[in-house]
């Protein structure tokens, strides 16, 4: 078995990112889309931690810290908007959000 090095972590991270991307595109439920976005951010975190390890600096860790902070804020705001939308529309499906088009 080949030893695990940086590219392995990066490929895992890219796979997770792509999973998230696919989720954003194919899912209808706004909440699940949001979860997929979290997957994408997590993929970035993983890559950052890996780079930090192999670059020998902790800047990546700090960046992860900021990403987690921002993501938490984003999730809070996003869920609030989705809840408000649910109250008006009784649905969280994004494919029903087509009152504005063309």
């Amino acid at each position, binding site marked *: 078995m080949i030893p695990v090095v940086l590219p392995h972590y990066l490929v895992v991270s890219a796979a997770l990112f792509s999973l998230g991307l696919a989720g954003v595109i*194919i899912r209808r439920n706004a909440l699940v889309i949001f979860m997929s976005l979290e997957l994408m951010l997590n993929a970035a975190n993983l890559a950052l931690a890996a780079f930090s390890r192999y670059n020998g600096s902790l800047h990546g*860790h700090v960046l992860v810290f900021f990403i987690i902070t921002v993501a938490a804020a984003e999730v809070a705001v996003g869920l609030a908007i989705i809840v*408000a939308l649910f109250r008006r529309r009784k649905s969280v499906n994004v494919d029903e959000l087509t009152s504005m088009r063309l």
Partner: protein
Amino acid sequence: MHDQLFWFFSIAMLLSGLLVILSRNPVNSAMFLVVAMCFMAGLFVLLEAHFLAIIQILVYAGAVMVLFLFVIMFLDLKAERRRRFRILTFGGGIIVAAAFMVKVHDVVEDMPLVAAKGVAGTTEAVGRLLFTRYLLPFEVASLLLLVAVVGVVLLSKRDLK
């Protein structure tokens, strides 16, 4: 040991990730997301990012995912009804994601290999960096959190005052 754990955590995390986007019931998605995050914390530990592993569990799995679950319960969301399968969106999504994956893989493959350098991401080390060099963004993040708090309160207030 490190390598075996890496494969275990990675494969488990990716599987949970896959299940997040494939579960029809949002509660299941959320639960798989929590699982994925816990495996991710494991990977962080392997990378000697101890501080990150802890806040990954505390903030993500603990706070963020609880928020998700709370909202799902609050809105009383049921599993999605099976609907017309939209091949275009589905296929498009898969193709784009795969294309992205392939591109990143190609790029990563060509990277020069370097050995890991032993820098441990302890709370102390990260904290020192955070409060010296990264003080400015740290303060800006506080403004961001204030905005988020104000916004969330406003948007989710039930009554109109």
